[in-house]
């Protein structure tokens, strides 16, 4: 039976989600004014979970993760604005057909951008596959710098204005959910998403965070997730286990990038305009810090890390500044963020290098834990060759001795004693346990015992080694 603590632990994500769902009520009634920073923090939570897949699970140090965030944001910029004013494409946009530009419903842009950023993740990841450690970090850093530069200078690509340069893309469509009738739904004003009505944005962010969490946790304990961790631990051993390291890494880049892309779409749509200058190296570092401070490879670590790092950036420091102003002090705490950050990192690395939540291994609970009745057939597992002849179990003499594996002939016991420079009687013969072989019924999930052509047991016609 799981203990109360274990049960609470298992359902902790649901408690957190329930709290997140009612949080706006608390926030509204207390008038904390946290909503705006909170939306930005939640964006970083998504980013941290995405980066955790690449850095935490697969161990690929990526310093250019902001690139995928930018690509996601530009996706919504292209597909939900009047930027391409020469064409008129409307898909479920809820806007008058006469408005020029590409106008897709944001609910379509999310999946499109997820796929597109995944493709970019694979494309940018491919050249780095042979690199490890520092070299990988430098190359990804380069990509993180190149992508925003491409957006910044993309206003004249062969005469086409792709990104509108430093001015960026603005006037993005506000999302629609059920159109004007959506207003009636729940009275939350779903029809009017905007700076004055943050509630829909909040719940959308929570939904995306739940999605990122689901993807992370599902992948973590799957064949692919284990392959990532194996590569992180020892790439050579992983390949000897049959793992196609190149493919597995590309999957990590792709899935990690697509989560970053989702966050980018969300961010772009919420801000309503996109500027290349907002996709700076600093953001990659902040998200990486979130993952490291939280605990690499731990999904909850990434979430909490993002709250710590970005909470500091977007809520605590600005709040401190305004509180200081309220008492007549003119201190801009926000400009101290890098200092505080640096100190935080150093302190973490000194006192808790594994992060707030160290990458914890899955706890499997079996109903037949060792030591319980029904599992006493395997005292040592390995045992001597069968048919060594009868041997009488000897009573164990008191005092320290070497417990010998059952089934060892007397001659061998004497050898063991000699090699340990012990008197022969100090080597203890344990009572023999009934041997139980690996049952023939044990099958691999897909391949039965009969599908291996070299599995002699499957084919009675082939002579089996003398037994």
């Amino acid at each position: 039976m799981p203990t109360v603590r274990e049960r609470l632990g298992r359902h902790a994500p649901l408690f957190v989600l329930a709290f997140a769902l009612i949080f706006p009520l608390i926030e509204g009634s207390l008038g904390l004014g946290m909503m705006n920073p909170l939306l930005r923090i939640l964006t970083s939570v998504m980013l941290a979970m995405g980066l955790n897949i690449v850095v935490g699970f697969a161990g690929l140090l990526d310093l250019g993760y902001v690139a995928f965030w930018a690509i996601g944001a530009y996706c919504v910029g292209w597909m939900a604005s009047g930027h391409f004013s020469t064409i008129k494409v409307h898909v479920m946009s809820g806007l008058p057909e006469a408005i020029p530009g590409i106008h897709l419903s944001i609910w379509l842009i999310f999946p499109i951008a997820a796929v597109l950023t995944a493709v970019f993740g694979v494309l940018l990841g491919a050249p780095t596959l042979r690199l490890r450690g520092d070299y990988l970090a430098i190359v990804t850093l380069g990509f993180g710098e190149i992508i925003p530069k491409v957006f910044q200078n993309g206003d004249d690509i062969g005469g086409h204005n792709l990104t509108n340069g430093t001015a960026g893309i603005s006037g993005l469509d506000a999302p629609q959910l059920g159109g004007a009738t959506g207003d009636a739904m729940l009275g939350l004003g779903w029809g009017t998403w905007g700076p004055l009505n943050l509630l829909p944005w909040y719940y959308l962010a929570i939904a995306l965070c739940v999605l990122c969490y689901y993807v992370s946790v599902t992948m973590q304990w799957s064949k692919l997730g284990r392959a990532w961790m194996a590569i992180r631990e020892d790439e050579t051993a992983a390949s000897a286990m049959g793992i196609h390291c190149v493919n597995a890494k590309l999957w990590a880049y792709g899935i990690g990038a697509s989560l970053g892309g989702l966050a980018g779409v969300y961010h772009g749509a919420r801000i309503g305009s996109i500027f290349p200058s907002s996709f700076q190296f600093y953001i990659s570092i902040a998200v990486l810090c979130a993952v490291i401070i939280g605990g690499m490879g731990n999904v909850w670590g990434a979430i909490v890390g993002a709250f710590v790092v970005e909470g500091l950036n977007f809520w605590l420091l600005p709040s401190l500044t305004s509180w200081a102003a309220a008492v007549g002090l003119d201190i801009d705490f926000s400009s101290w963020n890098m200092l505080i950050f640096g100190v935080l990192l150093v302190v973490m690395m000194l006192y808790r290098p594994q992060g707030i939540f160290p990458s914890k291994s899955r706890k499997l609970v079996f109903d037949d834990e060792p030591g319980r009745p029904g599992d006493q057939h395997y005292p040592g597992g390995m045992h001597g060759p069968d048919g060594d002849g009868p041997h009488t179990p000897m009573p164990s003499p008191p005092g320290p001795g070497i417990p010998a594996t059952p089934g060892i002939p007397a001659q061998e016991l004497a050898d063991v004693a000699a090699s340990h420079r012990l008197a022969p009687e100090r080597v203890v013969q344990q009572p023999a346990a009934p041997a139980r072989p690996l049952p023939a019924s044990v099958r691999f999930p897909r391949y039965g015992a009969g599908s291996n052509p070299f599995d002699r047991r499957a084919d009675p016609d082939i002579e089996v080694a003398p037994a």
Partner: protein
Amino acid sequence: MSDIGTAQHHAQDTELLVARELTMRFGGLTAVDAVDFTVPAQRIVSLIGPNGAGKTTFFNMLTGLYHPTEGQLTFMGQDTFGRPPHQIAQLGMSRTFQNIRLFREMTCVDNVLVGMHTKLRGGFLATMLRLPSHRHEEREGIELARELMRFVGIHERHAELAGNLPYGDQRRLEIARALASRPSVVLLDEPAAGMNPQETYALEGLMHRIRDELGCTVLLIEHEMKLVMSVSERVTVLNFGRKIAEGAPQDVRNDPAVIEAYLGSSDGAVVADGYDQPTEAAS
């Protein structure tokens, strides 16, 4: 009980693996020099030789970790010369490492599950949607992993991190991980290194069980001569990258070339260091 030490290499045996004139050069150093080697099905065969003889290098070529310089390599009827390790693993070859290479930050069960990689389907959609097929596969995989850990005798440690196991258990976990892909050949690189005498003794039994119960060939590199002589059905000796002897254990141990390789002269015996009593354990 197979009669250890006398079993001959039968001509009608299925040869799982055939290496012809396999050569590995590192710059000027020829670590493995035109070695012919075959691995019969369901046998225990050993590869021995002094330090630096090229044994591990030979394993690395068989498993694809090294691209051989020259020669031919066939495994399960397929040309595996220069193929990447994951493809060779897929065909049913699995190994342990001389200097243990477990996934230290993963639990024992997860280590074995990684070993099962080639046998799990793990489709992307099935995983993402957590379809019943995926959950079923995971459950069965975990059950099998526990069976294998039981098989090697470390079942009570399933939840521990592999890196926290004592040395002997790490070696056993590596074997369990290697067996998880249900290979036709498992390559063990000095599995007894660092084991105490009981563990070494139990290892011998384990190798027999791998052969007899799992129907898997064991290819063993080992310096512990007593173990090699009692467990092997055939022994191949390398020295300076060359094959200097091959045959039944007692023939090899009395081969003057082998004695010379080990002792530098022919007036000793391979077994001189305390192992001069022929093993009579097996009847």
